């Protein structure tokens, strides 16, 4: 049983300098074909469960034209939601206007995730993002339609000072939004900025600390995510809680019946309705490993009782877990095992020991 669905819309108006996700410049003919294929994939594989969460990500879903958006919502109209459902759509700041917000609202969307990345022109320039938009007024407009809004922020940018970052966060705080995802820039190969040097380590670490202290009134519930109480991303928690979900669209991933699938990244293939590329069938041990690498990202970590029940074992018998607890890298709090906050910044060093 999976009660979450992810839909991938791999098209953008503009390719940002840092982005290594699966995306293409928009082209109406190809988008139309794509939406047909997407519908076909859902028809083939979706078993009709009632959903707790639906998430449309990209790319830039909001770059679709009106007809295409209508087609998209026609596709999503088949999903039946449970009470307290969460339906998120990713939205570019420049696409926000009353018309699109209205359209979202009328089609049951109840959460917006806006890729702001930074409020500062210098940074937007570096990221190759549109810098001639009045970001604040657009967000204020969105707030009239939605209260559950996330913005994405990227830091550790070239020539960014700690003051610049502080300004970004201050603006976010003044907007009084319930959720923010803060990502430190990862310089990926095959992107426009693949040749630049990362900012110095001390500054990177200072920025990480600054964010943490400035957002102290928010719940730092996942490594990169902060929210007001009750506004945690239900959809993303599905991933981090190692629960099953559907993923439809180019390069999308699913986790169904103990199998993790990954779709092709080739758009032509996808539009010819060829979908699933890789299959990873999980053993019990694999599932436990995923549980470690996912749940330890969460502030609450792993609940000992739940884990022991789910896997019919005692997590504290695991030699490496024990070792990490002895080394103070993992802590036991109440009935949960969590990563010592001191090491969140280098959490992979801990996770690699557990896989």
């Amino acid at each position, binding site marked *: 049983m999976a009660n979450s669905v992810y839909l991938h819309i791999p098209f953008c108006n503009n390719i940002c300098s840092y982005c290594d996700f699966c995306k293409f410049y928009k082209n109406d003919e190809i988008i139309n074909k794509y939406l047909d294929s997407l519908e076909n994939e859902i028809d083939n594989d979706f078993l009709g469960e009632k959903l707790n969460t639906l998430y449309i990500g990209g790319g830039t879903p909001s770059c679709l034209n009106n007809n295409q958006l209508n087609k998209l919502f026609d596709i999503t109209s088949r999903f039946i939601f449970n009470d307290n459902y969460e339906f998120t759509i990713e939205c570019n700041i420049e696409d926000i206007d009353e018309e699109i917000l209205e359209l979202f609202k009328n089609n049951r969307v109840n959460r917006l995730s806006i890729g702001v990345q930074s409020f500062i022109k210098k940074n937007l320039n570096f990221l190759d993002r549109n810098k001639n938009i009045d970001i604040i007024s657009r967000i204020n407009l969105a707030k009239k339609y939605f209260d559950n809004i996330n913005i994405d922020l990227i830091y550790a940018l070239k020539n960014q000072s700690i003051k610049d970052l502080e300004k970004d966060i201050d603006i976010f705080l003044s907007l009084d939004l319930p959720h923010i*995802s803060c990502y430190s820039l990862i310089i990926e190969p095959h992107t426009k900025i693949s040749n630049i040097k990362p900012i110095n380590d001390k500054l990177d670490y200072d920025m990480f600390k600054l964010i943490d202290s400035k957002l102290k009134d928010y719940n730092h519930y996942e490594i990169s995510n902060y929210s007001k109480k009750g506004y945690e991303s239900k959809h993303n928690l599905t991933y981090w809680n190692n629960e099953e979900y559907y993923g439809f669209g180019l390069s999308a*991933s699913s986790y169904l019946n103990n199998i993790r699938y990954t779709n092709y990244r080739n758009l032509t293939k996808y539009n010819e309705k060829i979908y699933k590329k*890789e299959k990873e069938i999980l053993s019990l041990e694999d599932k436990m490993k995923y549980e470690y*690498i996912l749940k330890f990202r969460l502030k609450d970590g792993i609940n000992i009782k739940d884990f022991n029940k789910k896997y019919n074992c005692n997590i504290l018998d695991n030699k490496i877990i024990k070792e990490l607890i002895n080394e103070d890298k993992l802590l036991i709090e109440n009935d949960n095992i969590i990563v010592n906050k001191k090491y969140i910044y280098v959490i992979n060093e801990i*996770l690699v020991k557990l896989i």
Partner: protein
Amino acid sequence: MNEKIRNFAIIAHIDHGKSTLADRILELTGAISKREMSSQMLDSMELEQERGITIKLNAVKLDYKGYTLHLIDTPGHVDFSYEVSRSLAACEGAILLVDATQGIQAQTLANYFLALENDLTIIPVINKIDLPNSDTDKVINELVDTFGFEKDEIILTSAKTGLGIDNLLDEIIKKIPAPSGNINSDFRGLIFDSVYDAYKGVVVQVRVVDGKVKLKDKIKFLSNDAVYEVVELGYHTPKEVKVNELSAGDVGYIAASIKKIKDVQIGDTVTLENLKVKPLEGYKRMKSMVYSGIYPVETNKYDELKEALEKLSLNDASLIYEPEVSKALGFGFRCGFLGLLHMDIIKERIEREFNIDIIITSPSVIYKVYLTNNEVKEISNPSDFPDRQVISRIEEPYVKTNIFVPTEYIGSIMELCENKRGNFINMDYIDKTRVNIHYELPLSEIMHDFFDKLKSYSKGYASFDYELIGYKQSDLVKMDILLNGEMVDALSMIVHKDFAYSLGKNITIKLKEIIPRQLFEVPIQASIGNKVISRCDIKSMRKNVLAKCYGGDISRKKKLLEKQKEGKKKMKMIGSVEIPPEAFLDVLSIK
């Protein structure tokens, strides 16, 4: 029948064309056709072909004009002169091969003297005479002046083109005496090599000196009286050929289902069970010059490592090892090597042939430590060094060098030797353009990068050989390395007091480069006694977080983590610090 046998080896400085000459001889005697020829047939070990050097000796039987020739290949590198002397003990003659473009080099000299010690008939040969930059007349004069050969006994060849090879073979038959053993005496054979075969057990290479050995004979090793029944006899052409008996003068192999590796000792005499014979004169065992620790990266591989060393030492008697324990590295072995190249070869063979990742600690010579209570200790492991207070003096081994070099590099070579704590002895002029420079140098100073430096100081022209000349007192101290405040015994080393500060500084800097960032800031310190002489810090780790979880692509996230894990697998945990295994050796490349 003995009259028709000739046993000989080829001796030469490295790269003077020994293996190519062997190839040509194989071809000319019809042992192997041109078509079958993969160049350098005798270098069968993967490593040998890759590095273009001969490490292990190989013996082949050849037919030529009604004579049986046994050709025994020899290594050229200075580290392996022990192997050369093993080859030579099984021969009556040697071809001394000199490159027409290079003339006499350091190992030409060393090998010449080894052959003389073994009472061999020496045939001087100048090779590569076809090359445009050859200077055959000059090299002829060198051979005449240095060794006293007659001009007309020197044979000129090009192993590459085959020029002069038939002439050389005729000379071998004419000049090298037939083996002197008696076919009717009791069987005695000299074991000059052995190799482990998964099916046949230990296979020994023998030179039959007297009598004969047949299939099903019960053979006995004199050194330990172990008895085995012969199940297979044969020789190489280089293909394996099985025979029913081997007799006096023959060079071949014996397989006798020998499972106990320790029963076979190179240089031992083999005879028959019921015979009482005098042992043959073996050859002097080479003393290991360089010692270092070998440890498995994964501690559970100790037994596998032990087995690997056992098997390697089977046909490499010069490799010695005994168990040792390091606080930092756990259980391993203290190993003795002939030299640095030998150490390098053993390391690679363990990793390639036995697939065990190992750590090698910094090599050390044997120091003689005189204590205040008049005791003398021989120490090859710096961590065994006694407390400074109880040491009255320390002596270290010294060598005398033969450095062959064109005269224009005399200055830079002298500068190099002075920097290595050398004392100038004298200089022999080979001719107007070349000299042999003699220095007295601490052995420890030539262990690390001396050879490389020599090449770069002389633009590649210098050749080098050395002999041990005994121990001399030196002002030495033990320098320790501390990681995160903890001493790492495997990184301790013995250094000259005057060089300690700069060395300590360089080593801490080097370690900082080699050791990846850790979860904490880790200080690296060099200290003598309790006094820290240098310090460097490894910074704490860069951020290592996979931020964005794109569309639930969690398999990819796991793959990224797995990739990171793969990179860490080979790391060794020393306390709470992760160290790449190469660190223990690489740290010395700064010297």
